């Protein structure tokens, strides 16, 4: 049973509570969380790849990537450090587009980033209109601090799954742990089930 904190009133969210997963609060800032320095990625050297368990690896230059059909989506994001930000608008390429007509027996994938960050996801979670590789935030190019030039966007999971500075997706026949997943954080990370840490 929870311990009542004598005299604690708290601040009730000014939004529909059904939009806020357990333990989260609404922020209007856009906090930055990264484990190391922000990598520098010249756009003429940038590339995005789909590799691993695929019939043929795919790769796009920055120019090619920006010629892909783009979507603009407005959605809520939830960080494991407790903040949620509602109605954020992003533009980018649906992962469905990147994996279109792909022949694979993969069940999982590892997203990897410039700078060495990795995070793992079930393949089903990045398909069916649930994940993007975003290059724009609001009506601006995505700022490097927030993962620019391009970051993964998987809003239905805690935001560490939305890898900043993403450079590729490796399709896998089985689950493998990424960076935070090896360092104490939950393998799947569903905010609605409050899967923050190992054992949640």
């Amino acid at each position, binding site marked *: 049973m929870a311990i009542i904190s004598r005299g*604690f009133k708290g601040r009730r969210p000014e939004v529909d509570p059904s939009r806020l997963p357990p333990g989260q609060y609404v922020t209007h800032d856009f906090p930055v969380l990264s484990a190391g*320095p922000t990598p*520098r990625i010249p756009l003429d050297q940038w590339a995005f790849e789909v590799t691993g368990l695929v019939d043929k690896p795919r790769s796009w230059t920055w120019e090619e990537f920006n010629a892909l059909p783009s979507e603009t989506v407005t959605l809520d994001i939830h960080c494991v450090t407790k903040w949620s930000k509602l109605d954020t608008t992003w533009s980018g390429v649906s992962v469905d587009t990147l994996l279109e007509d792909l022949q694979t027996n993969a069940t999982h994938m590892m997203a990897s980033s410039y700078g060495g960050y990795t995070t793992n996801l079930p393949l089903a979670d990045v398909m069916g209109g649930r994940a993007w590789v975003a290059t724009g935030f609001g009506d601006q190019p995505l700022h490097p601090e927030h993962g620019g030039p391009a970051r993964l966007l998987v809003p239905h999971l805690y935001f560490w799954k939305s890898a900043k500075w993403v450079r590729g997706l490796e399709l896998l026949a089985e689950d493998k742990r990424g960076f935070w997943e090896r360092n104490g954080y939950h393998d799947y990370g569903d905010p609605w089930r409050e899967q923050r*840490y190992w054992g949640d």
Partner: protein
Amino acid sequence: MDWGAARVVARRDETPRVRSIVFDCPTWEGHMAGQHVDIRLTAEDGYQAQRSYSIASAPEDDHLMLTVERLQDGEVSPYLTDDLAPGDQLEMRGPIGRYFVWESGTGRPLLMIGGGSGVVPFRAMLRHRSAQQVDAPARLLYSSRTIEDVIYRDELTEFEDSRGVEVRLALTRSQPEGWDGFARRVDAAILSEVAWAPPDRPHIYVCGPTGFVETVANCLVDLGHDPNSIRTERFGPTG
């Protein structure tokens, strides 16, 4: 990870806006220097709020200590700094995070760069270093607005005097008369003076507000440090 009860055993004023709170946590199973905890407060009507705080105490200390900065519009921090009194309980779980941690015994120099309350995890590292009697050198570069805002002032002096830790302060807003430390925001010149050269392979930890961490980490990369040797913890005003 389960929640456990933590009882306040003592409080200590660090600065006008910062207070340390010492807890007795019977179910605590230990931590590494640099890790954090989640705390959960429950109002009488069942409403709950959670936040994360860096652990200020070393693994060897008898009690768990958190150091909390009171944020003007914060939901949780004013309660922790102003209302919570010895004997009160709250829920806690942890330790959390296995990356921004320092383990003694690598023999490599330890460089800690903190801004504001970003100094908190470094207290844990410095106390851990003392408890383990580590010989490898340690330096702390700490940016604060004024001398009154310096958290752990006396303890830092003690680390300097008796533990061979080099503590360098940068006071960004105002400096006391006769100040001979840095008197500006941490920049490339300060970092090249304070940091070991890249071939010495220091373990580097940077903790503070986002802008501070971005600047420091970028300068360190410019100075030739391997990005993978720089571990960062950023926080925004989200209290």
